């Protein structure tokens, strides 16, 4: 009797395909940004990799410390000994779990280092950060790009999860006076290192992290599948493990006059990269879009000179106001100045500017950003399309 041997092709989703609602193509094409690769971020990333999400984008400026290991399934002791970035190590370990996942990492701050174009390419943003200021910016940038974002937060055995999207509910609209106080305190900190000193002392467990992360991924999966009516846009999860409290709270209505609610109607692609000089940027605006007298409006102030308040010495710089302690923008000599007083700054640039020789990235514009241009009669938005990592 001849024995027939059947071989089975490897199919990661074989099990998932038995789910009536599962759509392999949507999952493989999906782009999900995970902001924060701490306790929650580790669990979220592990789930997304297991689910075979096609494209992940991990944002975190932090490096791995020993204290992270007890709540971070993707990190090992050798990673903190080598002082490695959370985002890079998480990407490596995810590849070990599922080599088919495409991963982009940014070792930077969501507010300053993540371009709007990258956000607009995402299906959903998952928030795993450890402070309210970052959540506020995730809300603003997600709303600007008409994207949903899934918030998670944990402490002790408490876990919260909410899904924010314009016309459903807004994080900024719901902030209490006390929450604004903590946001303003963080804004008051001059740099990331200082911000980190006041962060990360909250007791968390891998238990609430994995519970909340699972809910976050479940909502993200529904969004990816277009199952909008099933998404928890209108109710929020609040659980407390010690008292066995499981609440589904009704979301609050959005308010008027909230800074988060603006989104441009149209964004035009521009054949320019953040690595190009301002001169090329203005040339392409003229050649491709026939814009003669544009004004580039920056989202930040661009510092041109500052004074060392201790010595009254004047220093010429070219750095965004958020980068005065960042070696990407200023020299070690400037970083060492304890009390800096910005003397000259601009927040808009024209083709007549003396700064045309400088690259967009050197004045604080992140890769694949969307820039606001004021022309004689209108405001228009242009995307730095040459930075598109998915084209």
């Amino acid at each position, binding site marked *: 009797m001849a024995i027939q041997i059947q071989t089975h092709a490897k199919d990661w989703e074989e099990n998932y395909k038995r789910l009536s609602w599962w759509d392999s193509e949507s999952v493989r094409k999906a782009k999900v940004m995970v902001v*924060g690769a*701490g*306790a*929650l*971020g580790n669990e979220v990333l592990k789930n997304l990799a297991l689910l075979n999400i096609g494209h992940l984008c991990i944002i975190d400026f932090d490096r791995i410390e020993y204290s992270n290991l007890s709540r971070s399934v993707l990190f090992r002791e050798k990673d903190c000994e080598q002082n490695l970035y959370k985002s890079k190590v998480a990407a490596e370990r995810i590849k070990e779990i599922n080599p088919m996942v495409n991963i982009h990492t940014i070792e930077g701050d969501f507010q300053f280092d993540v371009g709007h174009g990258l956000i607009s390419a995402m299906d959903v943003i998952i*928030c*795993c*950060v*450890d*402070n*309210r200021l970052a*959540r506020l910016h995730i809300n603003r940038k997600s709303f600007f790009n008409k994207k949903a974002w899934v918030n*998670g*937060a*944990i*402490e*002790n*055995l*408490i*876990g*919260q999860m909410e899904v924010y999207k314009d016309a459903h509910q807004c994080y900024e609209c719901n902030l*209490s*006076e*006390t*929450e604004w*106080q*903590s946001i303003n*305190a963080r804004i008051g900190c001059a740099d990331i290192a200082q911000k980190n000193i*006041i*962060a*990360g*002392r*909250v*007791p*968390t467990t891998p238990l609430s992290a994995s519970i909340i992360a699972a809910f976050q991924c479940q909502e993200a999966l529904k969004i990816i599948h277009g199952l909008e009516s099933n998404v928890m846009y209108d*109710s929020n999860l*609040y659980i*407390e493990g*010690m*008292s066995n*409290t499981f*609440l*589904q*709270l*009704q979301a*609050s209505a959005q308010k008027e006059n909230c800074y988060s609610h603006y989104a441009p109607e149209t964004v035009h692609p521009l054949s320019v990269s953040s690595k190009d000089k301002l001169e090329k940027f203005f040339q392409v605006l003229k050649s491709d879009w026939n814009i003669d007298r544009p004004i580039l409006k920056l989202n930040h102030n661009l510092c041109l000179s500052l004074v060392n308040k201790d010595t009254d010495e004047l220093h010429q710089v070219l750095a965004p106001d958020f980068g005065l302690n960042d070696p990407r923008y200023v020299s070690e000599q400037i970083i060492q100045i304890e009390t800096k007083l910005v003397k000259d700054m601009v927040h808009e640039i024209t083709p007549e500017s003396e700064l045309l020789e400088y690259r967009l990235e050197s004045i604080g514009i992140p890769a694949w950003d969307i820039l606001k241009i004021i022309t004689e009669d209108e405001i228009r938005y242009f995307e730095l399309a040459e930075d598109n990592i998915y084209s």
Partner: protein
Amino acid sequence: MTKEINIIIRIMPTADDIEVSLPLDATPKDVIDALLDAGLGIPKLDDQGNPISYKLVPKEKGQEIPQDNTLMDAEVQESDVVLMLPMVWAG
């Protein structure tokens, strides 16, 4: 004088119940500030010294009392159980 109602505030995460009489024109902030100042041992600050943000949620309705609403606006009734939930932010 504003009419008062008797309700139960359940402080989370300990789930301790406190019976209180509150004026119907009180806002969530009024109630939370009064409870924090009443010497009941409810924590005001987190481990980092930041003020803890609480929200009031009538247990049956499951909806936060909006910050600019009064107990009357939110239709809080005599003997209602109102949860006082700390909002968390770590990740």
